[in-house]
């Protein structure tokens, strides 16, 4: 049972690689971006998993309550900002995909490459 304390990290590994698979194996650019989104969510999970302390609570100090155990606030701060930055950069990726669609008429990577090859 002690070994299941690592289950969060195993989920992290699986999610990371599912996202990575979508990025490298899929040809559709929107699908690649969704893969990147899963990839970054896996990293968020890794950080937030590390903040947990047994018997702890969210790091908000209550007056008059002594001997509270708090989970670690630092990973939370890092990921809190990273989520919002993540959506902004995803939006930038989507904007590039929209421009690719307008320039090539497709968002499949192999079709875009085929067109580039024919032009050369």
């Amino acid at each position: 049972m002690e070994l299941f304390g690592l289950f969060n990290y195993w989920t992290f590994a699986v999610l990371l690689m599912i996202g990575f698979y979508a990025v490298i194996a899929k040809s559709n650019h929107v699908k690649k971006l969704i893969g990147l989104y899963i990839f970054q969510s896996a990293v968020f999970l890794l950080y937030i998993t590390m903040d947990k302390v047994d018997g702890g609570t969210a790091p908000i100090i209550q007056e008059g309550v002594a001997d509270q155990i708090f989970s670690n606030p630092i990973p939370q701060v890092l990921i809190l900002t990273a989520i919002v930055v993540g959506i902004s950069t995803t939006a930038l990726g989507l904007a590039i995909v929209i421009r690719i669609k307008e320039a090539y008429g497709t968002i499949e990577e192999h079709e875009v490459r085929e067109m580039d090859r024919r032009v050369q």
Partner: protein
Amino acid sequence: MVNLFAMFLLTMLMITAIAIVRTRDLFVAVMLTGIFSLLMSAIFFILDAADVALTEAAIGAGITTVLFLGALALTADRERTVPYSRWLPGIVVAITTLIVIYATFDKPRLGDPMAPVHQHVAPWYLEKTPELIGIPNVVTAVLGSFRGYDTMGELIVIFTACIGVLFLLGGTNGKGIQPRSNESEALDVTLSHHVIPRVVGRLLIPFIVLFGLYVQFHGEFGPGGGFQAGSIIAAGIILYSLLEGEQLAFAALPRWTLMAMAAGGAILYGAVGIAGIAMGGNFLDYSVLTNDPVLGQQIGILIIEAGVGITVCGALLAIFHAINARVRG
């Protein structure tokens, strides 16, 4: 400590991720992404990260889905079959997964209080926050004051990404077709003929915005702050433009207002930092803002959180409108 409910949620998360990658229908994939984010948000909450859960719920389940759907409307909603086989990436990914899982056996178990991550600077933050900053929420204290430089950098990244999207989608589309820059020509395809969403939405939107403001200004005491509040308010206004049409949304918040918000919030943040220098302290040192250092910290955090909220809200709305305003090429 092993939490069976958390393990159930994590398993669901993995299943959802596999379903997202396997489906050929991009519309289904985007909807599943929303479910993925909601599950992730629940897991964050179980892991004591209330602030992060709030952000993930507002951003991941709300705004990401809307942006992806907007992009799908402009591109394609089905994935085509590829002419090559994908066994090589599959093998690479399988081997890497096993290596990463092997590496996790050296990690401390979940919740281990002796883990190295809890030994460094975190106890100092937890101990000194009541004395130096005087606010209950340590996450806000670290975000706004102790690591204020980081947060400012993140805010500039959001602002830069917003500018990038506007540059990419604001001009012509190569075929001489202009995007609808004129607000009166804005897209008038709305959900207004669907009675139930419209009535329920009208009831909900004021409360969503009110909740956003509560999250903004209560961030020192409970879970909340500028990042969460900005996303919640943006989500509320996006809901409004989906229900009532962009014309009315632009009437309430014109395009230039969104630009001014995206830039103004970041400037406000920087201005607080420079005010610190002008009053004899360091950049982003709020202690010197008033005679009482603790009060100065609280005022500084309040202002920079407002700056964060304004920029996040403005940038997300500007991105949403930029994608929506694009004519199909």
